[in-house]
């Protein structure tokens, strides 16, 4: 094997190693596009506009859970069908959130209110 061929082979091995490391690094950091897109519906229990985070009560039966979502500038927020800023969202609204799985706070891709049920007779 000539010195030229040896150099080319080393370059190939190096490139392969780089690719393997790059793929693993991507998985470890969990870039949003790698994470599964999920959806949940629940009631907004808290809004932190400075941190751009909302808390939503969801759950199964009486096993209730609070999920925290980060809504960055790219997150589409619709209130009653109209695009709106996070500051317009109110506690108690029912929202459907599409988000990326991963550690909390989850990254919200969209937040949309759904009509609230009729609670006439509220005491």
């Amino acid at each position: 094997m000539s010195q030229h061929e040896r150099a080319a082979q080393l370059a190939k091995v190096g490139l392969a190693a780089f690719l393997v490391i790059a793929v693993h690094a991507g998985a470890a950091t969990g870039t949003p596009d790698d994470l599964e897109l999920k959806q949940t519906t629940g009631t907004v229990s808290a809004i932190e506009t400075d941190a751009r985070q909302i808390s939503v009560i969801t759950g199964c039966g009486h096993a209730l859970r609070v999920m925290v979502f980060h809504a960055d500038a790219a997150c589409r927020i619709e209130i009653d069908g109209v695009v709106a800023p996070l500051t317009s969202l109110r506690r108690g609204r029912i929202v459907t959130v599409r988000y990326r799985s991963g550690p909390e706070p989850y990254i919200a891709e969209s937040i949309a209110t759904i009509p609230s049920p009729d609670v006439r007779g509220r005491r």
Partner: protein
Amino acid sequence: MNRAAAGWTVAAGLAVFGLVAAACAPRHELGGPLDGLKPDELERFDAGRTVFERAFAPETGLGPLFNADSCAECHEDPVAGGVGDEVEVHVAAFDPATGACDPLAGRGGPVIQQMVTPALKAALGIDSEPIPAAASARAHRSTPAILGFGLIDAVPDTAIEALADPDDRDGDGISGRPNHFFDGRIGRFGRKALVPTLREFSAGAFVIEQGITNPDAPTEETIGGDPIPAGVDPVAEPELTAESLSRADDFVRFLAPPDRQPLSHEAKAGRAIFESMQCQRCHVPFLTTGDSPVKALRYRKVYAYTDLLLHDMGPALADICLGDASPSEFRTAPLMGIRLATTFLHDGRATTLEEAIRLHDGEASRSRARFAALTAEQRQSLLAFLRSL
């Protein structure tokens, strides 16, 4: 005999046979399956009973917070699916000024587990989950029978909505309204009617009562909002398979309601009194199920004696809020199988049916007053009727 006459004779014979057979039909075994289940549904019912009765241990996922080690530990008397003497603790924070209700889901609520595994006790030195400081009220909840609840599950939302009269437009002092889960669906299960479906109630109960995670409820409870210490619960999630969860759901859904007892002369008189007292305005005698993939659940009358709506029961019974339900609002308790109960009302504070009726207030205050005005004989008749359910 000509062919027509022979046909009528056979038809008449069959009719008589049918009437006799119906009269002599064996009554359902308490805790048995619904009539009309297919063989594969009966197999699922039997398989589900095994899951319902399975006792979990820390090595199989129990805890680290829990109230019981199996479904049947609480729903046990006189059969699996029956009543129990366990009383659990629920909490919430209610702001009367705004009507806002916080179920304290982020701080371990609304269900506060009364037992811990040895590993959690060793790690934190606690014997039960601490009550969150933010709780404005705590409630006790007794264990009801769940026999026949699959039929309640199969009642359409529209049937519940049709019974609602939130603004009391008919002026009878009774203004039932549905509760809603946090995603907006109509609720029906639980003393505050928060939970929309029986499967969700069961899946959630596996976690909050036994600490058994499952595909529908995949995360453990927190300890007052704090995560479980590392190494305390080494069993991987979910601790119950999708198959086992579905079988447990089948068992509960397919449990037959308790047979109503034949009415004595006294009980018949009591039924008339029940109606004259307007009890049936909330304790609606029957609901009709809707369409269902299970024939045994499809378009059936269920004599549940409830409207599945929230009613104001007055300040003396008030405890926690939950969903849309204010502290004093409770779902009309089903009277189906009330003869099996040994304590009454949502927290078991009444030890007799008569005491339970006397504790009704709010929207039921008129009915309570009518009860107070009954003669001793009439009261006994009413109680005889209730004990037939």
